[in-house]
């Protein structure tokens, strides 16, 4: 039944109801991850855990949408400053999603690759937005101060923004990827098996070979 789907069909197949209901919950995981950091007084964001978990369950485009909605939510309830960074979340969701789809989340080296690529994509795209939308600083976090210090030292705004962002992201995304990996390992198999088809776009139901499992019952 594993018919090869076209690119668009593949994307559409990812957006089943089963996947759509995951998105608000993944947005919640992203935000709770961030809130928990401030409660535990950790100097991190950890606001991409939900996006990565969804990438494993429902594929890159659902992960991208999760990223978009996380920022939209932050813009609506916290501060509209977060809105332009939606681009960053979408890019990270896509990149992580396609890397997971390629099977990288199953190998240790793959997890490291996801961490590094995610760090780079995040740092560069976020820096471009900070520099070109906000002129170098948003004034809402510690990064701005770090950037300002680096600007004094390096005399180059974009390079300073990227450097401060890279330092931060390397630690943050590392922990994020590890936590997401641990959570995915803990998801019950019966739940997981209902999702695998969405990521590859297979058919929904097959005909049961009669009494196929009678021997299984005798175990």
């Amino acid at each position: 039944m594993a018919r090869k789907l076209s690119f668009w069909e593949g994307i559409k197949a990812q957006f089943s109801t089963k996947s759509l209901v995951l998105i608000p919950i993944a947005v919640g995981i992203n935000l709770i991850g961030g809130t928990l950091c401030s409660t535990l007084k950790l100097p991190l964001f950890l606001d991409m855990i939900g996006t990565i978990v969804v990438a494993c369950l429902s594929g890159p485009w659902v992960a991208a949408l999760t990223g978009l909605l996380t920022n939209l939510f932050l813009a609506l309830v916290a501060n509209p400053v977060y809105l332009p960074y939606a681009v960053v979340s979408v890019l990270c969701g896509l990149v992580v999603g396609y890397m997971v789809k390629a099977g990288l989340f199953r190998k240790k080296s793959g997890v490291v690759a996801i961490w590094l690529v995610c760090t780079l994509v995040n740092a560069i795209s976020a820096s471009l937005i900070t520099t070109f939308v906000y002129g170098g600083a948003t004034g809402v976090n510690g990064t701005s101060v770090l950037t300002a210090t680096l600007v004094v030292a390096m005399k180059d705004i974009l390079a300073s923004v990227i450097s401060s962002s890279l330092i931060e992201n390397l630690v943050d995304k590392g922990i994020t990827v590890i936590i997401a990996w641990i959570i995915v390992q803990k998801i019950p198999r019966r739940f997981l098996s209902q999702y695998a088809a969405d990521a590859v776009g297979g058919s929904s139901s097959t005909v049961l070979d009669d009494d196929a499992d009678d021997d299984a019952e005798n175990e």
Partner: protein
Amino acid sequence: MSAIVHVEDFSFKYRDTKRRAVKHVSFDVEEGSCFAIIGANGSGKSTLCNALVGLIPHYFVGARAGRILIDGVDVAESTIAELSNTIGLVFQNPFNQLSYTAGTVAEELAYGLGNHGVARELMIERVEAVAKLMRIDHILDKNPLELSGGQVQRVAFGSTFIMEPRVLVLDECTTQLDPLGASEIFDIVKQLNADGVTVIMVDHDMERVAQYADTVMVLDRGSVAAIGAPYEVFADPELESHGVQPPDYVPLTRALGLPIEIREEPTIAAVKEVLA
């Protein structure tokens, strides 16, 4: 009367699981009757309920055999949305039966109608009617997420019943409620059943099953272990071997050496007599 629900040699296995959740199940439910499904945890009751409303095969993935007809329509060839006009499902956790799109109970009730494109005037009319039936007309402008479990379950019940289904599937719909909340729901069920709505109930409370059901079906590890009138099924000494405890009055009647009667009332009378 004719069978509104017809299940024929139905089997289902969730993907990537070892054994079939339901196997070779066949039964009929007469229109207007109350049909109870009982069995231990994991005996396949919920799987069967999901199959009746079309969630299998249209939502859950796996392999199936046999067929299910709802009012003559093959579930596999219909859609869940289409089926919801004939058969509705209410399950256990009230908070998982909200759409999470509504700011008020009224909006929540109207959600299904909106998806079916029902005109707003008719929508308002039906919301008022269902709210009255479910006794939630005083909380129509409350946020559903701020209600108690019992209230949310009545909202969920209303959201299902607003589609005016002819069959209601109640999958342990009062398990998470307190006894008062549960009896309030079953008062409504009784009324609907009397008005001609077919009820298929899954319940752990055997007294309640004995009280409401016309027919009882016992599931044991996915297969039908027994099916018949409550007094027959409950009188069967084999019942406990299928993981089901008969209602309290059964061992009591047996101890008194009386024949097991159709409903609890004669038993109560008999017990009163013995005590007197």
